[in-house]
Structures are given as structure tokens and as C-alpha cells.
């Protein structure tokens, strides 16, 4: 048996894998082999570290050195310098942008300082494909405690007391949901894990499943014990192959260790988990639609009641929780409801995982206590806006949420304050925008998504959203009137009130919140026919400054629409006649601006 004294942790999350962390892993194996260190140094592929902006990330334990932007070629240097000689490779360390100092320990980075990791506790620490590592970090201890020391009622009471609310978006109290399901008597009940993360720009659930699948397996078993279910089902997107693989491995290993299956830990409790695959439908995040999809039907929602707790999968009582909700459960059982409820705000306890993305310096996966402000997230954890540009808006809640602006920067984030501000928590997408984002265009972007994903069952959503999209399209093309804006607002209100499920009821949110917070910009599009962000193509034109143009013709060569031609004017001091762009043929791709070395082309 090998006795490792050093551990190399390599991020195997989707982001880092995309930038070749697989090759980094192979190189470590080979080069450590060359130095006969394979018995002393263990190389592990972990889940997401969160700091995706600086990926691929390699961490060396026990000294907690955090290497960023590692390439496969850097591996030799890390092995020979750091591991063999004990000297840190400073060129790969994180550089604090404020004072240009190298930071080797992740605990001292701004990105991590304000984070509290509960749901992500094991991501980046354990090998997700090895259950023993999970167990070594306390995995399945909570299940053991439930089965041997607690009654199902006590488990539910603990979760209720913790104040945990559903992390999928709506924020329904989890303990209450369990209790409702537990009360219903049936020969078969189901625990369902909703891993159908469809929100564009959000990857929290996927990262948890990829980084710590065992905590989900454990939490589902705890839920099964609490509500009296012996079967668990995970509804997971087929587009998440890595998460599926790791979950399958975790389930398989849990069965081998007697942590799933019959008579778990000799307690007489049986529980097993199966996977069901989604096929790409956003509406399937809604629990009734999800259940229909699992039954092999179109994923269309139905009216509640009956709630799934009464009549769910195959008509049996079912409890549906989101991945992140489950990830919190084992910690609550071990550390207690009191500890958990000490974190967060009065009505929103614990932490929330956000996928921080967009025009921000530190893109990544973060977990913060409820009640933190947007300012802390964007400027401290996120490191501010990319390129030193001005902050304009932050979008939370995906297609169901809204855009918050500067005046909301100091609002403490929890379920209720976000709704009050016109957005919502949602599953945890948080996209930061600067002045290069056009708000009517963003609203249109989300509505295109909703229209595509509307299941078509109810008229407000199927037809109403389409009409709203048409109006937004007119606005971004500069063909609308102020009456259109009024019609848009009215329509949004009607859809909100009359749609069947959560998707339709929240689809006007991106429009309403951008209208509330960026009304001027809408008016500009309508009245002045201007897009200040320079996004709406119909509202802008590319112009060549004929005094600055030297007539080199590079713009014309690179123009895919052949919209640029010579004029008969030669500017003073230049030898060749200047060029001009023909507005009718120009497709506004921007290629000419990139090609012009003399700054003669601008957008107006």
C-alpha cells in the first residue's frame, strides 16, 4: 500500500476539462513516473474548484498551493521544481490584481475569502470517482446517523428547523415538502432529484454532480428514509455526460459498500437509485412536467393540486428536490439545524451557489452566505468588471428572473429581497453586464429562449410570449412606437397572471425588470432610433472617416459583403483615395473595424 505525502489535485470540471486538464493529468502521471514518485505523490482528478476564469487549476497539498492557467507543458516544471525541490513555481501562481503580488494559498485570495462552502464542501477536494475519499471526508456519516439514531419524524423536524428552502428557484421550504409527502400513505413512494439544469448560463448542479456525486446519493437516501420511500430517481440532462458517468460510478460504489440496496447498514431500510435522462426541455425543471417526462411523455406541466407529494411519478406520492438542495442535507444532519440556521438572513438560511459569469474578471462557481450584497459578489469575489468598464446590470434567475442595476448593489441577497427588487433567486445563474450590453436586446434574448422552450400547452405562454417577442423585435429594429411599449407592458401583466406554470408566469420578468430599470434605453430605441450599447444592428451604421482613411483597402478585402468601395476623394497628406461603406449592403459584422489599423472606422 502506498503512503502518499503529497497530493496533486487537478480540476476535472467541465471548464477546465475543456482547456485540456485531461492532458495535464496524464502528464503528471508520466513525469512523476519518470522520477519514481508514483508511490509518494497521488494525482487526483477532482470536481470544480470554482475559479473557472483561471483554469485549468492544479492544487498541491498539503501546502495548499494553487496554480492557475496551467498548461500540459507546465507539468514538468511543477514536478521538478515544486514536488522534487520544494520551490513554488511563481509564474503559475495567482497574481493579486491590486498589488501585483503572488498569492499561493487559495484561502488568501479575494475570490475565496467571502465564500462559505456547504453545498460545494467536497468539490475540488475529493476524487469524485472514489467513494472512499468521500467517506474519509465524512460522507455517509449523516445517513448512518439518521438510520441508527433518528426516527423519520426527527429527520424531517431537523430539516424543517434548519430553514432550508428549495434551491431550484422557487424557495419552497424543504422540510415542509418532505412532511407533506411523508403524511401520504402508499405502497410505493419516490424520491426524485431534479438535475435538469436548463437555465442558460448556469452550471451549479452540474458542478456538484461532477465534483461530489456521493453527497447527492446520500441525501436522497436520507430523504427516502424520512418520507418512507425505497426508490430514488435522478432526472438528469443527457447533455451532461460527465455528471452522468460520475453519478453512475457513485451509485455503483455505494451499492458495493452496502450504502444503497437492501437493509442499508443493517437497519432494515431499503433504498436504491436509478437514472432517468432528460432530452433538453427547459420546462422539465417544473416538477409536474419533469414527472411526465420521466413517465415517457412530453414534458408538459399540469395544474397543481394535486401536488407530486400526493400524486407524482406513476401516480404515487413523490418528493422532488433540486441537486443543490440535496447537497445541503447531509451537513444539516451532522452539524445540526441550529448551526445551519445561524447562517443567512431571517427568512433565507444557509448559503447559495451562484454561477458567476459575463463581463466580470473572475468567472466561476461561488457559494456565499444568504444576505451578502451584490456589491460584495461583483467587486470583491468577482474582482470587478472586465476591462475596467462600467457596471450596468446583473441578471439573476435566468429567463425567469430580472436585471438588477446599480441601485440594487447594496441589497442583501435572499429569496424575498430579490423578488421585491423584480428579479428572483432562480437556480443561481448570475450574469454581469457592462455598458456594451443592450437591455432591450437582452430582454429579447431571454424571450427567444422562452418562446423556444414553451411547451405550447397554455395560450398565454404559447401565443403571448410570441407576441411580446415580435414587439421586442420591432423595438430592436427601430420600427416601434410608444404604443408598442404600452402594449408590451400590458401583455406582460396578463401573461404573468394567466400562464399555467412557473415558466410562463415568470417569462415576462426579464422584460418588466429591464423596462423598470432601463426605461430610458427603451425610449431611445423607440424615439431616437438609437442603441447606446451598439448592439442592435439595424440602429447603427459603420462609417469611415475619410480624413483618417489612408486608402489601403484592407477593410474592403476583409469585407464579407463587399460593401466597401473606393471614393474619388483623397485626403490631404494621403496618396490613395479613401474608402466608403455602402449602408444598404453592409451586414454590420464589424470585420472592417478589426481590420483597420488607423482607427478610421467607427460605429454611429
Amino acid at each position, binding site marked *: 500500500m502506498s503512503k502518499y505525502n503529497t497530493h496533486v489535485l487537478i480540476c476535472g470540471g*467541465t471548464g477546465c476539462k475543456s482547456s485540456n486538464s485531461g492532458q495535464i493529468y496524464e502528464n503528471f502521471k508520466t513525469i512523476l513516473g519518470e522520477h519514481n514518485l508514483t508511490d509518494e505523490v497521488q494525482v487526483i482528478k477532482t470536481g470544480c474548484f470554482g475559479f473557472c476564469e483561471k483554469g485549468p487549476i492544479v492544487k498541491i497539498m498539503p501546502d495548499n498551493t494553487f496554480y492557475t492557467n496551467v498548461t500540459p507543458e507546465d507539468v514538468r516544471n511543477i514536478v521538478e521544481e515544486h514536488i522534487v525541490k520544494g520551490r513554488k513555481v511563481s509564474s503559475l501562481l495567482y497574481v493579486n490584481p491590486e498589488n501585483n503580488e503572488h498569492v499561493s494559498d487559495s484561502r488568501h485570495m479575494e475570490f475565496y475569502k467571502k465564500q462559505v462552502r456547504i453545498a460545494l464542501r467536497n468539490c475540488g477536494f475529493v476524487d469524485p470517482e472514489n467513494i472512499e475519499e468521500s467517506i474519509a471526508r465524512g460522507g455517509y456519516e449523516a445517513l448512518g446517523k439518521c438510520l441508527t439514531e433518528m426516527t423519520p419524524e426527527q429527520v424531517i423536524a431537523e430539516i424543517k428547523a434548519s430553514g432550508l428552502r428549495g434551491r431550484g428557484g422557487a424557495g419552497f421550504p424543504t422540510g415542509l415538502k418532505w412532511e407533506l409527502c411523508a403524511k401520504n400513505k402508499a405502497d410505493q413512494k419516490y424520491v426524485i432529484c431534479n438535475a435538469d439544469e436548463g437555465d442558460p448560463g448556469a452550471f451549479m448542479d452540474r458542478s456538484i454532480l461532477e465534483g461530489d456525486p456521493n453527497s447527492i446519493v446520500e441525501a436522497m437516501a436520507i430523504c427516502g428514509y424520512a418520507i418512507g420511500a425505497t426508490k430514488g430517481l435522478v432526472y438528469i440532462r443527457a447533455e451532461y455526460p460527465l455528471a452522468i458517468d460520475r453519478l453512475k460510478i457513485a451509485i455503483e460504489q455505494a451499492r458495493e459498500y452496502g450504502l444503497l440496496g437492501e437493509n442499508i447498514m443493517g437497519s432494515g431500510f431499503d433504498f436504491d437509485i436509478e437514472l432517468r*435522462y432528460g432530452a433538453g426541455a427547459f420546462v422539465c425543471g417544473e416538477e409536474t412536467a419533469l414527472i411526465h417526462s420521466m413517465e415517457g411523455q412530453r414534458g408538459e406541466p399540469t395544474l397543481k393540486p394535486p401536488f407530486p407529494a400526493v400524486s407524482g411519478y406513476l401516480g404515487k406520492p413523490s418528493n422532488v428536490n433540486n441537486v443543490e438542495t440535496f447537497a445541503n442535507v447531509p451537513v444539516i444532519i451532522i452539524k445540526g439545524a441550529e448551526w445551519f440556521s445561524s447562517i443567512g438572513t431571517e427568512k433565507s438560511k444557509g448559503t447559495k451557489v451562484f454561477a458567476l459569469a459575463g463581463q466580470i474578471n473572475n468567472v466561476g462557481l461561488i457559494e456565499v452566505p444568504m444576505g451578502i450584497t451584490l456589491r460584495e459578489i461583483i467587486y470583491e469575489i468577482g474582482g470587478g468588471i472586465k476591462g475596467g468598464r462600467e457596471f450596468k446590470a446583473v441578471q439573476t434567475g435566468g429567463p425567469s428572473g430580472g436585471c438588477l442595476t446599480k441601485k440594487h448593489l447594496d441589497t442583501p441577497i435572499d429569496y424575498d429581497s430579490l423578488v421585491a427588487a423584480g428579479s428572483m433567486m432562480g437556480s443561481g445563474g448570475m450574469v454581469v453586464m457592462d455598458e456594451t450590453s443592450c437591455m432591450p436586446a437582452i430582454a429579447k434574448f431571454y424571450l427567444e429562449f422562452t418562446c423556444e422552450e414553451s411547451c405550447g400547452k397554455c395560450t398565454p405562454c404559447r401565443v403571448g410570449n410570441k407576441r411580446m417577442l415580435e414587439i421586442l423585435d420591432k423595438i430592436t429594429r427601430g420600427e416601434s412606437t410608444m404604443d408598442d411599449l404600452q402594449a408590451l407592458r400590458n401583455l406582460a401583466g396578463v401573461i404573468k397572471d394567466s400562464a399555467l406554470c412557473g415558466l410562463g408566469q415568470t417569462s415576462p420578468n426579464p422584460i418588466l425588470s429591464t423596462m423598470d430599470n432601463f426605461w430610458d434605453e427603451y425610449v431611445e430605441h423607440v424615439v431616437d432610433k438609437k442603441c447606446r450599447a451598439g448592439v442592435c444592428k439595424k440602429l447603427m451604421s459603420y462609417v469611415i472617416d475619410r480624413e483618417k482613411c489612408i486608402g489601403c483597402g484592407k477593410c474592403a478585402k476583409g469585407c464579407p459583403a463587399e460593401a466597401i468601395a473606393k471614393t474619388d476623394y483623397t485626403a490631404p497628406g494621403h496618396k490613395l483615395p479613401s474608402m466608403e461603406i455602402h449602408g444598404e449592403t453592409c451586414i454590420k459584422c464589424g470585420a472592417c473595424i478589426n481590420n483597420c489599423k488607423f482607427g478610421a472606422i467607427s460605429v454611429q
Partner: protein
Amino acid sequence: MATIKLSEDKIQIIKDICASFGNRSGEVINVLHGVQGQFGYLPAEVQQVVAHELHMPVSKVYGIVSFYSFFTMVPKGEHPINVCLGTACYVRGAEKVLDALKRELKIEIGECTPDGKFSLNCLRCVGACGLAPVAMVGEKVYGRLTPDQVPAMLAEYR
């Protein structure tokens, strides 16, 4: 609907997949996942066989195929290109990359080039938002793309 023109061995493959799920109509989504995994897409003839095996109307199978975006009735190119249009990629200029791809390939979204080499589609969030904007060619992810990098990216496969 088209009359079945599939070869016997292809029909057998579909039948085997259906049988592996016990020919239960409730497993139709899993069956379709399996069949699309084999053939790459789900043309009408294939749906007919699936419907027959699972004892359900073809209209139901078609209803499911057309409902879920993962299923497609159009064959993919040899190198399927997927541009991420998740919000993070969108605000970092994914649309411009998509426009450049359309121009270079001379096809629209959902189409395949006449030589069958490339097909162009969009998807919502690859999960690599740190690399936004992102496009995938086959399984390979290209991050931090700009429109002028597109020709070089395609050249790798031409």
C-alpha cells in the same frame, strides 16, 4: 409518413434497443436516446419502427421527438458545430461568432453543408462560462472565440 425503407439489419438494431427496455411505452425517451446514439438522428422511418415495437401511435413518438430539443430528425454533419448561446456567452459576443460561422459555411442554424462535412447548431450553456464565448466542434471545445478565429478553427477540419 414515409414507408419503411430501412435495411433489415438496421430494423433489427432498433428492435434490439426496444427489447432491451422491455418494449415498454414508458421507456420511449430512453429508447430514442439509444436509437439516436446509433444512427445520429431519428428520421420518420425509424420512428415508425419504434412506435410499432412499443405498441404506441407514431404520432406520440413524433410528438416526443419534436418536443425535446436533444432529438433531431435532420442528420448531423461529419463535424457537428455547436455554438453556445447561454447568457454568459451571449454577453461576451457569441452572436458575432455565430454570424461568422454562418458566413463561412454559408448555412443557417440547423442546416448541414452540402458536402456533409459541417452542421451548425446552437446550444444553451456548455458549462465552460469561464471560456466564453464557446463553440464545440464534435467533442472539442473552443473557448474565448472571436469572429476572426473562425476560419482557422474550421481549417482544422477541412
